[in-house]
């Protein structure tokens, strides 16, 4: 067994530098690497490029990094619900590259699985395809999209073990598995870190080979963006 555990978030983020490209898992605020984000804020790394489906809200998630002007560029599919984001984008402080959500997921998976590029129909005929190669397959037009390149991937799982194996929960899974192994170093934070052998090999969703560092997060706020409920009556 190859041990991937590190003592804490500080050790997990060793090597993080200004100007790097990071992948961050999560959909909205669901399944985001809360502890890694806090540490990125504390470290004050600047001019970073973030690959993340969303940009958090004003005071949580990636919004915390936006507040401190640490982000140079966002690569996302949806960036609503964030006033500071809007302000920075409109003022030109923040560069934004919008990418169809399925393309975003597959650009991660392509990096993970060693595919340099892929063809997808998403975005054909739109400004997303401008300047990109297009091609007809079976009578349908496709756009050539390339695998992401990133220095670190920060992902959040539910349970993990010393070997770096991960299990996600509910829709907090989202982009997290796709980003594992898609950057030079994958840092996984988990709610519960277990000894190797605690997880059924059959139930592991991401094998440890895709993870370089794993730690148990100190605290998870797990903020809900839209609390929708029904009453019992």
């Amino acid at each position, binding site marked *: 067994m190859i041990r991937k555990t590190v003592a804490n978030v500080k050790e997990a983020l060793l090597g993080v530098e200004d100007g790097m490209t990071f992948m961050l898992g999560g959909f909205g605020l669901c*399944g985001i690497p809360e502890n890694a984000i806090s540490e990125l804020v504390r470290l004050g790394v600047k001019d970073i490029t973030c690959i993340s489906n969303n940009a958090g809200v004003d005071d949580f998630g990636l919004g915390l990094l936006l507040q401190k002007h640490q982000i140079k560029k966002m690569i996302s599919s949806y960036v609503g619900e964030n006033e500071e984001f809007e302000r920075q984008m409109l003022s030109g402080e923040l560069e934004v590259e*919008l990418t169809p959500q399925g393309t*975003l*997921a597959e650009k991660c998976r392509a990096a993970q699985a060693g595919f340099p590029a892929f063809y997808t129909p998403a975005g054909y005929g739109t400004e997303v395809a401008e300047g990109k190669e297009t091609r007809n397959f079976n009578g349908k037009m496709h756009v050539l999209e390339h695998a992401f390149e990133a220095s670190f991937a920060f992902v959040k799982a539910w349970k993990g073990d010393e070997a770096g194996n991960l299990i996600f929960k509910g829709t907090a899974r989202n982009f997290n598995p796709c980003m594992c192994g898609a950057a030079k170093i994958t840092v996984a934070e988990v709610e519960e870190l277990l000894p190797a052998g605690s997880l059924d090999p059959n139930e592991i969703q991401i094998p440890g080979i895709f993870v370089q560092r794993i730690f148990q997060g100190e605290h998870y706020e797990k903020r809900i963006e839209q609390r929708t409920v029904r009453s019992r009556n």
Partner: protein
Amino acid sequence: MLDKIGIAKRIAREVKDGYYVNLGIGIPTLVANYVRDDISVEFQSENGVLGMGPFPYEGEEDADIINAGKQTITTLPGASFFDSATSFGMIRGKHVDLTILGAMEVAENGDIANWKIPGKMVKGMGGAMDLVASAENIIVAMMHTNKKGESKLLKKCSLPLTGVGCVKKIVTNLGVLEVTPKGFRLLERAPGVSIEVIKSATEGALIVEGDIPEMTV
């Protein structure tokens, strides 16, 4: 004329037994409430869940279980969770039978625009570009005109496109229209809405052939 709930109810009748359906944010989300309960349908949300159920009871909401609108949800028996790449594999691979989404503009050739207003806020396309590029069966739910009273059914979209030639059907507050090679073919009028009203609210080519029934919702 239909209100948002009326549009959702009318679209619910397009949902057939055995369909996997992806519902966009807004009016489309309401459709789930009006699907006949004697047919089997599963709702997919592109953030990674199939078999979505209603909102949770108060106090039972789970931050780890949401839909693509970031709302807390529940799951029904037979549900499953999966990652984003798998989710869009379902969509791109045409395993999802029906996509219902909103739009800012639809053109008479089926082009759709719903993600960006240049110079104003850009929220992003989310999964919409993947959905419209792949789905074989796309229904747009929207108001026939915008807040200024301008038609949203156009000869050509003025806003940046989400997808080209992909919309098959449109349900608005005024009626049901099908996208054909010759333009918008009117299929049904909303209750109390005349053909003249629809004509004047439609900038793109409108085809009115034969008797156009008033819909029953």
